[in-house]
C-alpha cells in the first residue's frame, strides 16, 4: 500500500509545507521577538496575501504580478495595523494584545468573506511551473517542487536581511533587549513598524505562493496559524533558525503521518510539541528566559 515513490513524494510534500510554515513562522517569531506581541491575526494575514494575489492575478493574468502585489499589499496592511492599533498595545498586558489581534483576525476573515463569499477561489500556477516533472523514479507536480525553491529563496532573503544588514542587526538586538536598543539612540519605534511590515510580508508572500497548491477560502489561515504556533513552540520563540527547523519538522510530521492516516497528523504534531516541552521547554533553538 505504501510504495517507495509514494513515501518520497510525501517527503517532498512535507518539505513544501515545511518551507511554507518556516516562512510564516519566521514572520510571527520576529514580530514577537522584537515587539513582544503575539500576532493572532498572522494566519488571517496569510489568507489576505492569497486573496490580494488572487485579485491581482484576475486583473493582470500574471503570477509574478500576483506575488508582488500580494506581498506589497500585506506590507501596507502590516504597517497600517502597527501604526493604527498595535502601537497602542505595547504597554498593555499580553492578554490585551492577544485579544485585539484575535479581533483583527475576525475582521480580516469576515471582511474577505463579505467581499468574496465563502466559495473557494483558485489561482493557477504560473505557466513555467505547470504540469508534472519526472524525477526518474517518480513524477511530482512541478509547482510543488517550485514552491520549495521559491520559499527557500524568500527564506534566504529574510536571512540576509536579518543577519547581513544594519536593520537586521538592530532587529536581532531588539529581540534580546529592546529597551537597551532604544537607549542606544536607535529609533525603536520606527524599527517596530518596519519589523511588523516585514513579518506581514512574509505571511502575505507565503499566502500567494500557497494559493495554487490549496484553493483559497477565508478560513485557510486558521489551520495555518495553529500549525505556526506548534512550529514556534518547537523551534523556540524569537529564533529565526528555530522557526526554519521547526517548520521543516512540522511539515514532515504532518505529511508522513497523513500517508498512513490524515486523522492522526495533528495528534503526532501535538505529540512532538509535548515531547519538546517536556525535554526542552524553551524550544529546540530557543533561549531560556526569553518569554
Amino acid at each position: 500500500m505504501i510504495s517507495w515513490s509514494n513515501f518520497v513524494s510525501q517527503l517532498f510534500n512535507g518539505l513544501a509545507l515545511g518551507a511554507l510554515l518556516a516562512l510564516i513562522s519566521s514572520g510571527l517569531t520576529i514580530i514577537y521577538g522584537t515587539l513582544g506581541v503575539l500576532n493572532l491575526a498572522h494566519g488571517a494575514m496569510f489568507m489576505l496575501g492569497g486573496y490580494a494575489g488572487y485579485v491581482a492575478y484576475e486583473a493582470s493574468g500574471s503570477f509574478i504580478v500576483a506575488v508582488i502585489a500580494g506581498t506589497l499589499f500585506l506590507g501596507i496592511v502590516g504597517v497600517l495595523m502597527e501604526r493604527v492599533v498595535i502601537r497602542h498595545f505595547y504597554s498593555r498586558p499580553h492578554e490585551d494584545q492577544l485579544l485585539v489581534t484575535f479581533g483583527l483576525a475576525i475582521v480580516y476573515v469576515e471582511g474577505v468573506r463579505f467581499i468574496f463569499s465563502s466559495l473557494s477561489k483558485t489561482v493557477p500556477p504560473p505557466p513555467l511551473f505547470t504540469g508534472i516533472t519526472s524525477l526518474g523514479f517518480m513524477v511530482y507536480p512541478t509547482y510543488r517542487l517550485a514552491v520549495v525553491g521559491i520559499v527557500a529563496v524568500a527564506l534566504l532573503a529574510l536571512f540576509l536581511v536579518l543577519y547581513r544588514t544594519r536593520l537586521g542587526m538592530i532587529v536581532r538586538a531588539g529581540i534580546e533587549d529592546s529597551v537597551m536598543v532604544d537607549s542606544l539612540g536607535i529609533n525603536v519605534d520606527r524599527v517596530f513598524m518596519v519589523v511588523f511590515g516585514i513579518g506581514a510580508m512574509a505571511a502575505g508572500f507565503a499566502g500567494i505562493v500557497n494559493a495554487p497548491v490549496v484553493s483559497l477560502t477565508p478560513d485557510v489561515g486558521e489551520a495555518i496559524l495553529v500549525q505556526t504556533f506548534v512550529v514556534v513552540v518547537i523551534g523556540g520563540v524569537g529564533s529565526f533558525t528555530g522557526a526554519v527547523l521547526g517548520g521543516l519538522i512540522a511539515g514532515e510530521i504532518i505529511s508522513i503521518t497523513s500517508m498512513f492516516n490524515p486523522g492522526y497528523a495533528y495528534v503526532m504534531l501535538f505529540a512532538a510539541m509535548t515531547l519538546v516541552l517536556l525535554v526542552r521547554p524553551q524550544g529546540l533553538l530557543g533561549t531560556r528566559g526569553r518569554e
Partner: protein
Amino acid sequence: MMRTQRPGRVELLTAIGLVLVPLILPYLGSAPNTVNRILVWGLFGIGFDILFGYTGLLSFGQSALYGTGGFVAAYLLTRAGFPYVWLALIIGMVAAAVVGYLVGLIALRRTGIYFAMITVAIAEVFYFVEFNPLSEWTGGENGLPGVPTPSLYLGFTTIHFTSGWSLYPFLAACYFIGIVVALRIVRSPVGAIFRAIRENPLRAAAVGHNIHAYKLAAFVIAAAYAGLAGGLLGVLQAFMPPEAFTFDTSGQLVIQTAIGGRGTLFGPLLGAAVWLFLQDFLQATLGLGAAWKLVLGLVFVLLVVFLRHGIIGGFVDLYRFVKRRKAPVEPREAAPSPGVADEQAAHAVAAKTAHAQPARRLHHAASDYTGPILQATGLTKHYGGVIANADIDFTVNAGELRGIIGPNGAGKSTFFKMLTCEVPPTSGKIVFEGRDITGMSVTDVCQLGLTKSYQVNQLFNRLTVRENVVIAALAELRGKFKLDMLGSVASIPGLDEQVSSTLALVNLTRRRDTPVSELAYGEKRRLEVGLALASSPALLLLDEPLAGMSPVERGETVKLLKSIAQGRTMIIIDHDMDALFELAERVTVLQEGRVLVEGTPDEIKRNAKVQEAYLGGVHGVIDVDEALA
C-alpha cells in the same frame, strides 16, 4: 466592590434576576432558545473567567473541555442508553475535569503567550480526534443526535424540562448553582491566591505559594465548568454538535468574556447576551446575513481598544467617576500623613507585637535556634563567563542584624538570590537552621522561614494594601498548597491578627484599603517589607530597603527596621552607609563577587581595603563617614 457587600446579596440578586427573565423577556420578543444558549455560554464562561479573569491565564483551547464534557454526557445518554440525564451531565463534567488536569499538566509548563499557543494547539488535536480516531463513538461530523432532556421526580408528579421556556428553569438552576460555587471560590483563600498569581506570579511564589499547583487547580475548575456547559449544550439542542470542538467555540468564549468584563464572573453572561442578541438582531432584523460577524468583530476590536475591562468594567469606572465628581473633597484622613498621633499609635502597636511575637510564634521557631541560622560555604555563581559570586563563605547567627555593603556590581543581589533559592548556585552549599536548602525552590525556602524583600518593588498592584499582606500571611498560615476553595478568607484562624500587626508594624494601617497602584513610593517600599514580614520569617533578607527614599523617609524606615529587628534575624543590603552602620551589628563587604572583609561597623569604617574599594587607590586615612556622605 463585590467583596464589601453583605454576604449572600449577589446570590440573591442573581436568583431574582433568573426568576424575572422568563416573566419579562417574552414580552420583549426574545426567543427562549437564545436565552437558553446565553445561559449555557454564561455557565461555560464562569469557569473560564476564574481561569482568565482571576488567575490571568488566557486559554484559547476551552473548546477541548467543552466538547469532552458534552460528548461524554451525550454518548452515555444516546449510544450507551444511560437513563439518568443529571448523572450523565455530572459524569461529563468529571471527565472534562480529569482531561483538564492532564491538559493543564502540559500547557502550564509555560506561561504567557506560550500558554495561549499551546492551548490552541491542544484544542485542535481534540477537534481532529473527535472527527477521526473517535468518530465511532462521537459520530464524527454528524455528532450525536437524540440527546434526551431531564425530568425531575417530586414524589407526586414529574416535571419534564423539554425545550424553550420549559427547559429554562433547569438551565437557570444549573447557572445559579454554578455562580454560587464560583462566588465562594473567588472569596476563598484560593481565590485570593488566584488574583495574586494574576498580578505577580513571581512574588506569589516567593511568599510561599505553590503557584503551579494553584494554576492547575484554576485550569481544572475551568474544565469542570466547561464540561458541564458542554453537556447542557447537548441537552439544549437535543443533539451534540461536533462544532463544540472548533476553535470558533474557544474564540467566541474569549470574546464574550472580554466584552462583558473579565474578572467579574457575570461578564461572560453579559457578553454572551450582547453577542447572541446582536447576532439575532443583525441577521434577522437588519438582514445582514453573513456580515453579522464582521460587524461584531469590529465592535469587539473597538471594545478591546477603548474599554479595557469590558462593559461591566466600563460601568464600574463610570460609577467611580461620577462618585468622585459628586464628592470632590476626598476624605483627607486617608492621606499618608505621618501625623504624630498616627506614628505613636503605630509604634505602640509595633512594640506590642514585637513583644507578643515570641509567645505567638508559629512554626518558624526563631529564638529556639541558637548558633548559626545561616551558613553558606563556597557559594559561587557564574553567568556564562561572568563570575557574579566566587567562593563566598558566610555565616549569620540567630538574632543577629547583619549589613552587606559593596560597590555596584559587587554581586550583592545575586548573593541574596542564591540565599533565597531564586537562582541555583553554580557550586557551594547553603544551610539554613541546620538544613541543607541548596537547590530547593524559593517557595519551599519561604515556607521554612527564609524570605526577602525585593530591591525593585514586587507587589500585587491591583489589590489593596491589606489584600497584599493577606496573600503573604495566607502562605504562612495555610502552607504552600491547600484547596479550601469553599471556605472564606475571614475564617482562617490568626489571619486578621497577623495582618493587622504587620500593617501596624510597617505603618500602613490607615492605608489598608487603598489599592497599591495609588500608594506613594515610600509607602510601596514599606509594603514591600511588609509582604516579607507577613510570612513571619525567622531570617529576613532586605535588598536595599532604603533605595530611592527621601531623607525623611529614610529616617522613618530606619526606625521601622529597628523595631522589626527585635526577635528576628535580618540581613540588609544597602548603599546608605550611615543607616547601615547605625543598624547593623556586623557588616560584610563584598567586592567583585568575593568577601572583602567582615567586622563591626567601626572596624569596617577604618579598614584600608574598604576605603580603597570605594574610593579607588586613595591611600592614607580618610574619614569614610564624611567621604561617603
